[in-house]
């Protein structure tokens, strides 16, 4: 048989397996992240974040929300070429308020994506965007122009969530002595 399967390359197969394991480990160590793998074509991951981020409500007010989803796909040639237009997709909510996430198209711009960038790194980059730890509010280099000037004028609010991605709640029982 020839290389006709989407991921028949053994090096890429190992890479995918590693991403799966590292992603699972990160999600297990975080109460702000869920990571699901979807083996259907094309096989992809869905990252669900429960951190605080911003959305724009119908009355144009900007409010905090805590449910965000993005899709991550590694094409078969990802170790050698990475096209940021193909790898990441914004799943929702559609009223996300961030200069580098589109509110009209499923587009996210996390900045540099080198070939072979691990899943965990992409998840961290997404988390940094959502919590406004990272943003680029230049109108000529953004995906939501309306959000740029708002972002520049509200920088004292950022990051909107200071909790680290990697942490677990500890169930402590405090007994009075």
């Amino acid at each position, binding site marked *: 048989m020839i290389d006709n399967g989407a991921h028949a390359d053994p090096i890429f197969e190992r890479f995918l397996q590693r991403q799966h394991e590292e992603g699972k480990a990160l999600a297990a160590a975080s109460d702000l992240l869920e990571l699901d793998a979807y083996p259907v074509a*094309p096989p992809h991951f869905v990252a669900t974040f429960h951190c605080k981020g911003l959305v724009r409500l119908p009355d144009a007010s900007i409010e905090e929300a805590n449910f965000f989803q993005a899709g991550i796909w590694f094409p078969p040639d990802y170790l050698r070429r990475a*096209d940021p237009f193909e790898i990441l997709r914004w799943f929702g909510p559609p009223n996300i308020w961030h200069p580098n996430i589109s509110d009209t198209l499923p587009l996210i711009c996390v900045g*540099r994506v080198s070939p072979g960038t691990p899943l965990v790194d992409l998840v961290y980059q997404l988390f940094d965007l959502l919590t406004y730890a990272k943003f680029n509010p230049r109108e000529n280099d953004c995906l939501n122009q309306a959000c740029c000037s708002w972002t520049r004028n509200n920088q004292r609010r950022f990051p909107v969530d200071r909790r680290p991605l990697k942490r677990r709640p500890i169930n402590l029982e405090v007994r009075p002595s």
Partner: protein
Amino acid sequence: MQREKSSHIAVVGLGAIGSQLLPLLARMPELTHLTLVDPQSFAEANVHGQNIFRCDIGELKVAAMARRALAINPDLEVTALPAAVENLPLAAMRADLLVACVDSRLARLIVNEIAFRLGIPWIDTGVLGVAHLARVTAYFPGENGPCAECSMDARDYALLETEYPCGAQVASEAPSDTTAVLASLASSLAANECQKLLAGDRQHAAVGCQVTVDARSHRMISTTFRRNPDCRFDHAQWEIAPLRCSLQRLTIARALASTGPMRVAGHRFVLQSVCTKCGLRFDGLRLDRPKSRCPKCGARMIAPAFDAMIDRLDTSLPPEYLDRTLAQIGLRAGDVVCGADQYYELLPEVS
């Protein structure tokens, strides 16, 4: 003059080095066929650094250089392909030797891949103007030799040219600090290797070896590469069978019956595309090659969801897609498709 054997060289990139190399190749008596690949036209700024005349300004590089080659040797067969190498059907690059005269790291990797898939030796040239360096390397597929990716690590891959959704068009493009003098030196080195490889003198060619001339200190440095077992490229050479068909008549359903599930390596099919700037939307299955641009505003178009992007065609496609012809979805003569157990080159029917 009757030649004993035909020799065919394909040159990718007709800028600083390519434009210097062309006249040298055209003067090689053993050469019978040249294929020229470059999507650009000559501009005013090229006159100082490239081997062109003022009358070439505004003309496609492949057309101007084809004319030059024929002026030197009217017996040459010249094929001019005004396209980016990644957008050409794989078999269009079939030759006895490929020469890459490109300043894009990504284009260099694409030539490397094409050469290995087709089992063709290829020559890479380059200059580093700031250090007065000119270099040449030859690669020979299929014998456990190194490829151009064998010496690359994650930092090198990070330097590949990329387009970003936020609007920045290209990042990390290789700096073009070429001078005509260095380009001429690199092209002479490349022509010398071409001559050796066409003559079958592999022993003295720079196979798996980077020869660098330091023009500042008059030194020559030779660096030998070995195949890297962890190389990200699989180095596979494909055995390709001809598939004669009418691309205008053969439907996907009938093609799948012959080939089994089918894909085009390095490219994807899309079922829907939407402009990232103005939102213009197109429905319908097609090969996303070249990466599509909006006809209205020129911005990049994308598949709006993962399930609108498919790597291979199979019988699970909706019937309205299965009835489309190969030409309708963007396949061209010379494309190599990967079937269930064989690679097929799409060839036009013989009338």
